[in-house]
């Protein structure tokens, strides 16, 4: 790097670059920074549970009808699966979450455009999609209804 050749002594190389920063969902500046992206509209209070936990405590913790699933994450908030309300209702309290969770939920990156997010929600066949970093760390849950409400408001 020529900066050191110019006499700059404290030079660091952010090797992973802007792509990494964008994928993390951290704030950005620039002409495109104001455009709403997936994480901007995602719910961040989605309930989580650990794969080694048990169904009973998770079921007791959630208010009936409030959430239709709980996201299964590890200590680093990396997504392992989802524990659906059907699984919570049909399994005994002492069953391990990991044994009844659904694997491989669909995810999108935090800076995904809203149009792309809707396409992914359609492809997944549901009404929402998890927003994660490229390493699978949970950032939030994006509902189709929230995207559509935003688009409708923005077009007024």
């Amino acid at each position: 790097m020529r900066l050191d050749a110019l006499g700059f002594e404290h030079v660091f190389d952010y090797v992973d670059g802007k792509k990494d920063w964008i994928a993390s969902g951290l704030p950005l500046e620039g002409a495109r920074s104001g455009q709403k992206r997936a994480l901007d509209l995602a719910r961040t209070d989605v309930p989580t549970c650990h794969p080694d936990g048990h169904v009973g405590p998770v079921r007791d913790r959630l208010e009936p009808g409030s959430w239709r699933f709980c996201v299964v994450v590890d200590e680093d908030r990396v997504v392992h699966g989802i524990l659906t309300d059907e699984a919570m209702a049909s399994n005994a309290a002492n069953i391990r979450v990991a044994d009844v969770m659904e694997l491989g939920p669909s995810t999108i990156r935090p800076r995904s455009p809203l149009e792309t997010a809707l396409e992914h929600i359609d492809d997944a066949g549901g009404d929402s999609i998890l927003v994660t970093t490229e390493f699978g760390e949970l950032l939030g849950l994006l509902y189709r209804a929230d995207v559509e409400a935003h688009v409708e408001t923005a077009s007024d």
Partner: protein
Amino acid sequence: MRRVGNRLLRTVDREGVRRLVREEGAQLVEVLSPNAYAALHLPGAVNIPLEDIHEEGTRELDRSLPIVVYCYDDL
């Protein structure tokens, strides 16, 4: 650290960048084109395209503060 030619560069990850900015007042330098910089850049970053990294092009940088350079991904 990583070797580029016969030089060793100090590398930093995302959290390292945030710490350098927050605690040491590091200056962020994006070496991409002006168009790429104008679209999206890290908060507070200045744009000095690679071809402008020379005495004149870097005169606005403070030599006493750390400088973090970045591209889109690996330089």
